[in-house]
């Protein structure tokens, strides 16, 4: 898919994120906006998804013979919900129910409410990489040659379980896995460098045995090129980790370059100011 097409979808997804968070006056816009370009590329360009004869995506929990994505940093739920709805897993009208009573779009994603496209609960951090590895190993046992993708946050790297998983995957040659770290340099209590420095993530993952790549997570062209390179490196004995630099709040000037918008909803005026910066390309829900 042309990057201009990807960017058009991303603009609409960013509008969805802002409107969802505004609609319930809660949620996490900063990281959602920062990772939008990656998730739109994955779901609209890179991943091979199961579809019916008419080309519409079809969801089943097992996800055999299709690429799978696991969101480990579950608080960027508005993003995954918008992308899944825009991709056709459920009606975009349902985005209006985000975080409201009786919704399937819980504050953090869960299969508990049977939302198409969600296979694991996340929110309590540090668990998604382990789940992704298990899913990748299930694919190998099934002779299924598709790929598993996983996104984590950089603050999430504080969690010990991440490093248990980091040690396990190369040891077991889980080479059908491409994981990402959203390196936005921010976490709730401030810059990651100040709260708990990750130091050199690339050196750490390389020491654990991963094939590590870097990309600009807000540059659609760099994302496409890096993912082509990463896919070419699958099946060679090592899992792949892509450290992607992003800006929290990417796409909305007053939400960028700060961790202030990690978990804060815009008010009416701020929503209008933000939406004015993002073209409505696919029609608001």
């Amino acid at each position: 898919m042309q990057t201009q097409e990807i960017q058009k979808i991303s603009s609409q997804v960013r509008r969805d994120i802002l409107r969802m968070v505004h609609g319930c006056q809660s949620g996490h816009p900063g990281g959602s906006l920062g990772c939008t370009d990656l998730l739109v590329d994955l779901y609209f360009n890179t991943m091979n998804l199961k579809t019916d004869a008419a080309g519409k995506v079809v969801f089943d929990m097992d996800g055999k013979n299709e690429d799978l994505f696991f969101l480990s940093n579950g608080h960027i739920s508005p993003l995954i919900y918008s992308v899944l709805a825009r991709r056709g897993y459920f009606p975009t009208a349902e985005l209006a129910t985000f975080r409201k009573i009786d919704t399937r779009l819980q504050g953090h994603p869960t299969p508990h409410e049977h939302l198409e496209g969600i296979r694991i609960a996340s929110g309590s951090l540090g668990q998604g990489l382990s789940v992704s590895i298990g899913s990748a190993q299930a694919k190998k046992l099934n002779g299924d040659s598709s790929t598993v993708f996983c996104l984590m946050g950089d603050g999430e790297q504080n969690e010990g379980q991440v490093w248990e998983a980091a040690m396990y995957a190369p040891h077991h040659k889980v080479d059908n896995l491409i994981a990402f770290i959203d390196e936005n340099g921010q976490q709730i209590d401030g810059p990651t460098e100040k709260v708990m420095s990750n130091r050199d993530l690339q050196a750490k993952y390389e020491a654990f045995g991963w094939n590590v790549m870097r990309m600009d997570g807000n540059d659609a062209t760099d994302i496409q090129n890096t993912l082509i390179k990463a896919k070419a490196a699958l099946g060679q004995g090592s899992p792949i980790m892509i450290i992607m630099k992003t800006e929290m709040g990417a796409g909305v000037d007053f939400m960028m370059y700060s961790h202030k918008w990690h978990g804060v909803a815009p008010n009416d005026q701020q929503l209008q100011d933000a939406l004015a910066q993002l073209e409505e390309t696919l029609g608001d829900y």
Partner: protein
Amino acid sequence: MALFTYETKKDTRSGFGAGMEYLSQHNPKVVALCADLIGSLKLEGFIKNSPERFFQTGIAEANMIGISAGLTLGGFIPYATTFANFGTGRVYDQIRQSVAYSGKNVKICCSHAGLTLGEDGATHQILEDIGLMKMLPGMVVINPCDYNQTKAATIAIAEYEGPVYLRFGRPVVPVFTPEDQKFEIGKAVHLVDGTDVTILATGHLVWEAIQAAEALLEKGIKAEVINIHTIKPLDVQAILASVKKTGCVVTAEEHQYNGGLGDSVAQYLAMNHPTPMEFVGVNDSFGESGKPAELMEKYGLNAEAIVAKAIKVMARK
């Protein structure tokens, strides 16, 4: 007169190992994971038969639970194995989010539960695991009583779709239930008929409950003994029918009062059929080092303790 007899003593964990060996040959969907305790969990037979379906996680239990949840996607039935302390309390949040809330078909199978692991002491003697696991919505909790029953339970849970906690132990105990029995989740096993007092026991305390019933019979007291191998879902029909007949009940388990079998029974009876009740278990205390039999005596988890509580509860009728 002996109500039950046995020919051999075996450890329940070996029953688990035998069940796993059976599954390696009969259920291609079963996969096993272990956190550096293959020998303690008796997994050698499974690994020998199905090395490609075994995953060594190293001493990393949180990762093991997450990987197990992932392995269910694609149709596998993961058995995640370690000691009970490390497989429940240490990884409670991983089980809660990635397994229970996510509704994944993971079997958490843990040895060395309770005081009877002995000399290693309180760091390893979890007495809270039944409570932790039963509080999770949708989690099945099973604590079989001997080798044969543990083997049968291990095989049976593969046929059940949903998360299960299977708890067993280290010491050798009498093998008195039938070989190749059919194990029904949630179906209590009636062992001894009686009219004076109901004894509801689980795990290693079932044999002690039988011994207690024999001692009570010598005093002219007819105790009814029921093996509650499944703490959740609880067989409330069996419990209700028995206490309606006897009018009082003693529960016995290798676990804290808080959160254990007794706690579940008390909750049910309080709401449906208030009945005088006594508990045999550990009362808000950690364990310590010692030989298993010494510990069970010190903490009041043997036949003598059950007899004393039975006499006490009968006086409260």
